[in-house]
């Protein structure tokens, strides 16, 4: 476990460096290396989570440190998907170092796994949390594209000479792929919320607790994205406006995820 953890960390670190190198040099061989290093890191990361699952006898989600590791895993999964489909690697420059930091935090800090009550341990929980985490990951990818859009747009407006030599995606690509990430995120989040609600209502025969702080924040987040996607279709809110929406949405996710976890009382301890 110790060794595997270090190895995963090292590979993610190498992948981060390769991504940064690619962005500065634009050499395609480096970008291939970065992609494969990330894939390898992801495979090890998966094993790491699986081992922890077996070790704890339950899906490792009870502690927020575990959930950070899982979120990092989901982000890398989304990134690899995008990188594979679009051959675009620039997002990795943001995402892979973030994953590196996340698992460093998740596994290096001592943690007191409290364990969940037995009645919460089932496939409902698994699909509910997995869907919501994957949606977060998609939104974070949208955020990454939003940031890249704004950087690139600024360069275009300033007529920066470095513009043509950088290896960020074009404005159209950042805008379009970012938008698709949002759509995918909204679908996943919606499914996750529905499963959570149905499970609470029927499987556990509990009243919906609308006022749970996590639920409120999640709805707010959901609304931000749905509104952005809707206005894009009707009024053409694309480009800079879409990028800002992705950033605001990301801030909302941070509140939902970290803020509520750490500072507000909620039945969603993770």
């Amino acid at each position, binding site marked *: 476990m110790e060794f595997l953890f270090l190895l995963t960390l090292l590979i993610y670190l190498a992948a981060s460096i390769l991504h940064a190198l690619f962005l500065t040099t634009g050499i395609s061989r480096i970008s291939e290396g970065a992609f494969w290093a990330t894939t390898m890191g992801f495979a090890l990361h998966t094993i790491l989570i699986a081992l922890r699952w077996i070790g704890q006898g339950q899906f490792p989600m009870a502690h927020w440190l575990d959930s950070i590791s899982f979120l990092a895993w989901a982000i890398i999964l989304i990134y690899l998907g995008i990188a594979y489909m679009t051959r675009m690697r620039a997002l990795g420059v943001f995402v892979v170092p973030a994953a590196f930091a996340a698992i460093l935090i998740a596994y290096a800090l001592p943690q007191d796994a409290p364990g969940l009550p037995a009645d919460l341990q089932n496939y409902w929980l698994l699909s509910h949390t997995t869907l919501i985490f994957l949606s977060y990951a998609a939104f974070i990818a949208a955020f990454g594209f939003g940031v890249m859009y704004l950087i*690139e747009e600024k360069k275009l407006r300033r007529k920066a*000479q470095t513009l*043509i030599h950088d290896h960020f995606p*074009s404005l159209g690509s950042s805008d*379009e792929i970012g938008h698709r990430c949002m759509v995918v995120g909204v679908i996943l989040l919606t499914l996750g919320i529905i499963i959570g609600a149905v499970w609470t209502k029927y499987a556990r025969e509990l009243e919906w607790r609308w006022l749970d702080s996590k639920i409120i924040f999640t709805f707010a987040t959901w609304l931000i994205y749905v509104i952005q996607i809707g206005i894009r279709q009707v009024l053409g*809110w694309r*480009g800079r406006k879409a990028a800002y929406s992705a950033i605001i949405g990301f801030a909302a996710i941070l509140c939902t995820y970290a803020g509520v976890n750490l500072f507000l009382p909620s039945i969603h301890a993770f």
Partner: protein
Amino acid sequence: MNQIHTVGTSHHTAPLDFREKLAFSETQILQAFPLLKEQYHFQEAVILSTCNRVEVYATSDVAGEGVPLLDFLTAYHRIDPQTLKKFTYTHQDEDAVRHLFDVSASLDSMVVGEPQILGQVKEAYDTALASGASGQTLNRLFSKAISVGKRVRTETNIASGAVSIGFAAVELAKKIFQSLKNKTVAIVGAGEMSELTAQHLVENGASKVIVANRTFERAVEIAEKFDGIPLAYDESLSFLVDADIVISSTDAPHYLIQRKPLAEVMKKRKHRHMFLIDIAVPRDIDPQVGKMENAFLYNIDDLEAVVASNLKGRQREAEIAGRIVEEEAIGFYSQLQLLKVTPTIKALNRQFQGVVERELQACFKKADLSSEQQALVQSMTQAIVKKLLHQPTKNLRQKTNDVDSEHVQYIRALRDLFALEDVENRTETEDQT
């Protein structure tokens, strides 16, 4: 010794009207090859003739500067030798190798990093190869020059960055749009530059062209060239609703495309990105347009700044490329020296003969032989040496005819095994005395 000579003229050394006089057409090149061989006693020749340079590469057994090549050019093109000398350069051996590598790496081109020259070098080589004018030395030299040209282009950024206004526009468009496919280019006004820019955009994927002009007939005329759609110009700019890339170059004295009507157009196209290129002087597009969301405005100065910065970038890359060329030229030339089979074979023969000679003398001292018997023994030993060396010599020469460098290893092995390194130098000095 097999020497490489080159004589050439290029945009660096001669004006166009002189280069024209020296140029070779394809047929002339084919005519020139036998002349070079028979009248001027060159063994191999390659002629490179482009609009920016004319260069003749040849190998010869005769030592000396490139005078016979100059004579050939004087005679062939009937040019005054003094003028020819003034506008040409000559290189020998290692310098000739370095020069050709510089040329194929496009370091000697007017625009450093331009792509055509590599193809032209290849063409010149293919022509010579097909007509049998080039042989082992020049075949090796030109294959290497082509691979050096490729290496420089992949390992440095010498060929990156647009160096013309039209290509700069294409590169910028690629930074704005996900892809140029299905994008519509609008040409407003007329002009060579705007048509050329539109042409580049179409070649890079833009699928539709619309042309707007105050006179509709003129619009029709230009639209025909691009299979495009002519439109009448109108103040509301409504013809721009479908346009993703707008190239404007009219001679209007005021701004044709103003912020307010364009804002309406942007609304109608749901704020899809628009790239506006203003190449008119005085300008056609209100600079305020550049501040609108999702509209990106570049004027002629901006595009020229892009080109200038790219050229500067290429100059920096050219230094790195120069080091690659230097390294390759030295490597190639020293390998070429090794390739020379004849001196190796001579040295080997001499060494064997030397051993036989010494042993014979020792033997004659001990045994009392008549001069007839001595002659018999001598001729027998010489026959043995000859027969022993016959097969290896034959094989070695055969190997040299292949372009791959496998036989270099044979030569190196031979030199190592028989310690021939010093022998060659000695034989050369002996040859001269």
